[in-house]
Structure formats: C-alpha cells, structure tokens
C-alpha cells in the first residue's frame, strides 16, 4: 500500500516541478492531466485494493487509512483529476481568462498534492500543515484572473483562512495536552494513539480542543458564521479552481474536523461532538439556503450552495446513527461530482458571456446547446433532484433523522434543501431556457464551438453523479459503512 500511496503523492509533485520548467506550454496540460488521472487511479487502488476500511498504517506510521480517510481521498482525487482535464481545455487561448498562466499548472498540481496528503497522514500535526499548504497555494490560484475583485477575494481568503487555521492549531495543541497525563510528555499525536488513549484523555481539554478545531478548520469548511471568505473566493477564482475549492478543499477541511471529532467522541462521548456539528450544520444550511434566494452572480450562488451542502454533511453526522452518517459520507462524494459539474458549466457560461451576472445571460440552450444542457443538469444535480446522487444522499440523511427520532432536524433539512432548490434552479433556468438576447459577451465567444476536454470533464462528472444516484457499487458501499463506523455508529 505504501508504494501506491507514494506514487499517488509523487505524481502531482513531479507535475508541479515540471510545471515550473515548462510553464503554460500545451505539453504541461497533458502532463498534468496524466498525473492527476494516474493519482486518482492510485487512490482507487490504495482504498479498494488494500481493504482500507479495516484501518491500516503504511510506511511505518507515516500514513493511516480507514473508511473515513478513504471516502475523502476518493473525493479529492476525483475532483483533482476532472479539474485537470477541464483546465487543459480552459487554458487554451480564447477560452478562460487567466492571466497568471505561467504558474497555473505548478500551483494546481501543488494544490492537488496538498489535498491528497491531507486524508492519509497519520500525524495530526502534519495534517494541519497539509491543510495550511492548501490555503497558501489555492489563494494564489483564486487571484489568477488578475482582476481587482479576485485580488480582494484572494486576500480575504488567505487572511481569514490562516487565522482560522491558527485557531485550529490551538485546538490540536489542547488535544495533545489532554493526552500528556496518560501518554507522557513526548508522544507522536497520531489518530490511533489518541483513540486508544481516548478514555484516559483529559475531558475538559478535549472538549475545548475540539471546539477550537471545529471553529478553526470549520473556517476552511465554510461553516456559518466563519464563511466570509468563501463566496468571494469561489465566485472570483477561475471556474476550475472554484470546482476544486468547492468539491475538494471544503471536503479536506471537513475531514480534519471529523478526524478530531472521532477522537473527541471516544474521549468525551458522541453527544458533545454531535451537538456542535448540529449547531454549525443547521446554521450553515439555513443561512446559505436563504442567501441563494438573493444572488444574481451565478458563481456566487454556487458558492452559497457549497456552504449549504457542507451544512448538510455536518447535520448528517450530527444527527448521529449509522444511516445519517452513511448518507453524509455519500453526500461528500456526490457533492464533489455534482459541484464540479455545476462549476464547469458556470465556467462555460462565463467564458462565452464574459459576465458573472445571471441577469445578463439568456438563452444559453439556443447558442450553445451542449453547454446549456450541462449547466441545467448541473443545477438539477446540485439541488438534489432525482435521480441524481444528491437526492439519494439527502434522502438517506432524512431517513437517518427519522430513525433517530430527530424529526425537527429532518424537517429542517427537507425545508431548506427545497429553499436552496428554488434559489439555485430559478437562476439557472432563466439563464439557460428563457428567451431573450444576452446583453453581455460578443457573438464570437457566445457561439464558440465546444472545447472537447472541457466537455469530457463535464460528462465524466455527470455520469458519476447520475450513476451514484442509481447504484452504489458494493466496495463503495462497504467503504461508506466503514466511514460511518468511525464517526456515527455501526449498522
């Protein structure tokens, strides 16, 4: 397993190094695509080929994989792969408006590397370093269109994100200190060490530490009220980067929260962890769903949708019990696929109409039928319309809520998922299907032919979110059960 893990991590590192030399030459795009797709394949081998569900260390105790890390590793590796494919098309002349072209590929591959490292590190301090690295790299990618707005968004992101992570680090220190009485002054803070010492950890310090971790890493997840950076960064960054932020970065940060939550659960019991996740999850769901009703910037709209979905995942774990937890982890996977599709579609519209204002975009289906269909399907997928995967995951969480007698929370999810549906779908419906002339963009761009690589990336995301809505392969089913066992409970 260690060899495959090293291959998975070495490929994006090598691609980033090559990018420094090759810059934005076309070969660099193909090299990055090959690297990202091969990394995804290696991740699949690591997770499914070595029975990661059982919880395994690799390369001594450098790496650790279990059901929880497996789910998040698959999600980030998938997003990195499809974003690389989409970017190879988006960076071609006349399509995406990226000024920082020279550094796009090295930064994207480094971003991919940091995201892949996060769920597999056994040492929780190194996990923090990996998440911090994602901030530094992705903040520059957010500014790569070179506009004043993107600069403002990048600055907000790096300052708020770094401050949040500093708080998260304080939480890690407190949890480390909670183990000193039983584990001694000098011990390596790995997940397994802390879980085995769980009942002997100092409960007050674990509670305080987890609260700091939740607020700190929760800032990167975009949980309300620490979400201020997210709508700006998602809306002003280039669309493939928005997809990476939404589908992979938020998931990686959420992984960190849940990993510490699993430790806290053993030390102080599950109810404390669940209550905190419920509070932040419910708040994020409600606030983000309401904000979708007043957005006219369609990328910003998708950003609020990301906050809503992170709220749903937190709510699913917070409800407790195996069914809701299973649904929440499944939601992480289908959200990754659906949100990449939605942001890729938004990128198509932006490159044609050159505006983020939904009111200036009309009749996409007539001028670019393929893009129009993809944009609309992306909006339907992300809002949880059947038969897409998000419908299935939300149904599982609601079922889990009923099975745990959490009727109010299940009701809350049903109501505000529908509010978000109205908010998101009405905007994309008008953009794609409403008659009328576009007031932005010139006809050359609006009617340009489909870019094959961008189309392939969208079709792949569509197939994944559609197939998962209809069928969950048995190895994936087992992985999701394994994740639910780590934090949630056994079936």
């Amino acid at each position, binding site marked *: 397993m260690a060899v495959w893990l090293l291959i998975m991590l070495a490929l994006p590192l090598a691609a980033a190094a090559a990018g420094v030399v090759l810059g934005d030459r076309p070969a660099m795009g193909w090299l990055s695509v090959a690297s990202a797709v091969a990394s995804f394949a290696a991740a699949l081998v690591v997770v499914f080929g070595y029975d990661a569900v059982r919880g395994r260390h690799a390369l001594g105790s450098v790496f650790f994989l279990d059901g929880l890390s497996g789910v998040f590793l698959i999600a980030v590796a998938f997003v990195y792969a499809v974003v690389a494919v989409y970017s190879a098309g988006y960076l071609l002349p006349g399509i995406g408006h990226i000024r920082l072209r020279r550094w796009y590929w090295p930064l994207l591959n480094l971003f991919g590397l940091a995201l892949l490292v996060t769920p597999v590190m056994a040492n929780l301090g190194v996990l923090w370093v990996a998440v911090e690295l994602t901030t530094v790299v992705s*903040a520059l990618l957010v*500014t790569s269109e070179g506009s004043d707005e993107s*600069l403002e968004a990048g600055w907000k992101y*790096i300052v708020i994100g*770094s401050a949040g992570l500093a*708080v998260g*680090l304080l939480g890690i*220190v407190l949890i480390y200190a909670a183990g000193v009485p039983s584990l001694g002054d000098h011990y390596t803070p790995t997940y397994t060490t802390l879980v085995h010492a769980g009942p002997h950890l100092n409960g007050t310090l674990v509670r305080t530490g987890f609260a700091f971790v939740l607020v700190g890493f929760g800032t990167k997840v975009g949980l309300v009220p620490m979400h201020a950076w997210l709508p700006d960064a998602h809306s002003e960054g280039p669309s493939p980067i928005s997809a990476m932020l939404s589908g992979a970065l938020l998931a990686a940060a959420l992984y960190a929260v849940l990993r510490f939550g699993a430790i806290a659960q053993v030390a102080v019991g599950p109810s404390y962890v669940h209550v905190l996740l419920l509070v932040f999850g419910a708040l994020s769901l409600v606030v983000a769903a309401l904000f979708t009703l007043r957005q006219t910037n369609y990328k910003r709209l998708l950003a609020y949708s990301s906050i809503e979905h992170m709220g749903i995942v937190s709510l699913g774990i917070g409800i407790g019990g195996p069914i809701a937890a299973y649904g929440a982890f499944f939601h992480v996977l289908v959200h990754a696929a659906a949100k990449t599709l939605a942001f890729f579609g938004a990128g198509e519209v932006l490159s044609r109409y050159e505006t983020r204002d939904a009111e200036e975009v009309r009749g996409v289906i007539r001028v670019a039928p393929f893009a129009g269909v993809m944009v609309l399907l992306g909006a339907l997928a992300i809002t949880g319309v059947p038969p897409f995967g998000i419908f299935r995951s939300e149904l599982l969480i609601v079922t889990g809520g009923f099975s745990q007698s959490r009727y109010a929370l299940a009701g809350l999810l049903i109501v505000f998922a529908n509010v978000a549906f109205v908010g998101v779908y009405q905007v994309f419906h008008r953009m794609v299907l409403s008659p009328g002339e576009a007031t932005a963009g010139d006809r050359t761009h609006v009617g340009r032919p489909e870019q094959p690589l961008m189309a392939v990336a969208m079709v792949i995301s569509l197939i994944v979110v559609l197939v998962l809505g209809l069928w969950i392969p048995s190895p994936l089913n087992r992985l999701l059960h394994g994740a639910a066992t780590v934090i949630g409970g056994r079936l």
Partner: protein
Amino acid sequence: MPVAPHYDVAHATAAIIAILALLSGLSLLLVKQVHEQVRVYAVQSVFAAGYTLLVGIDRVDAALIVLAVWTALIKVIVIPVSIDRAVTRQVSEHEVPLVVQVPMSLLIGVTLAGLAYWSGSALPIHGALLPMPALGMPLSLVLVGFFFMITRQNVISQIVGLLTLENGVFLATVAIAPGLPFAIGFLLLLDLLPAVVFYGVFARLIAARAKTTNIEDMAVLRG
C-alpha cells in the same frame, strides 16, 4: 498550614517574559505607523523565543533550545526584515486607518486580555514555568491579534495581526505541550515562511495597484 508554592529564578523570569509578551501585544494597539507595528512584532517574537529558550534550558531539552534559536532567526529577523523590504518601502503613506481609535482599542485589548485570563483559568492545565492560568497570556495574544486584524485596514497590519495570533498559538504550544515533537514545531515554523512570502506577494500586488497598503476601499465584494 498551606505551603507556599516554590518559585525559582526560572519561574520568575518566565512570569516576567509572559508579562512583557502581553504588554508587547497590547502596545501593538498603540502604534499607527506600519514600520513600528512590524518592529513591535519583532520585539514580541524576542519574548516568544526567550520563553522557549527558558523552558528548553529548564527541561534540559535540546530540541526546544534549537526551536528557540530557529524562532529568533525566523520571527525576529527574517520575517520583519522581509516584510519591511517587500512592501513598506514601496508606498509613501504609512499611517494606518483605524476602524477603532487608539484609546478605545486599548480598552478593548485590556478587556480581551482579562477575558483570556478568566477563560484560561477554567482549564485544568499547568504551563511550563508559567503561573496559573497557563493559557492566559497565549490566549490574550490570540484575541488581541484577532482584534488588531479586524480593526486595522492595512495589509501589513493584518499580516502583523495574523503573526501575533500565531505567536499566541506558538506560546501556548510551548507552555502546555513542550513535548510536542520537535519535528512538528519545526514544520510549523517552516510553514510560516512560505505563508509570509505569499502574504508579501499579495501585499505587493495590492500596493502596486493602489500605491498604498491601506485597504479601506477594498470592499467591492458583498452579499
């Protein structure tokens, strides 16, 4: 008959360093000039390195002593000098616009420090050499750093606020988890360097566009 706690030179020195570190954090709230803010941060980092050195000597821990030297090198010299060179010389205007004026800032800062000591006393934890509550001073720096970031509309000031916050977290680590493996402490500091470089890149971009590092006009994105 209650026994008086044992205090030696190391404890007394640590207590003095803690007070000076807290005062350096509060004194940030007094200065309006960007250069001076960077210098106050450097002084504050001297105390962070000094406390780490003291704990290292007291525990006869070579790793902590190396970490102290490394901290001094990075936070007292490299970061302040690079921030100074990267940005502040590019712009003519160095006075920072304040959302909250100095007297009120100081009052809020002192209140935050009191809050930090009060909440720190709720945690059952002893700090290396520090008087109880061990987390009082580090948490004060965290809160003051946050407050400074929020109320100073200048990119350099916000970086200084962030670094102050990070100093608070660093001091908390040394105080309550001095055994946290050296490799992690080293990694964290190493991690700080590229972060500061990237902050510098941002700050230069902003300064190049607006000819100032003040960001009071930078509020296009809302809602």
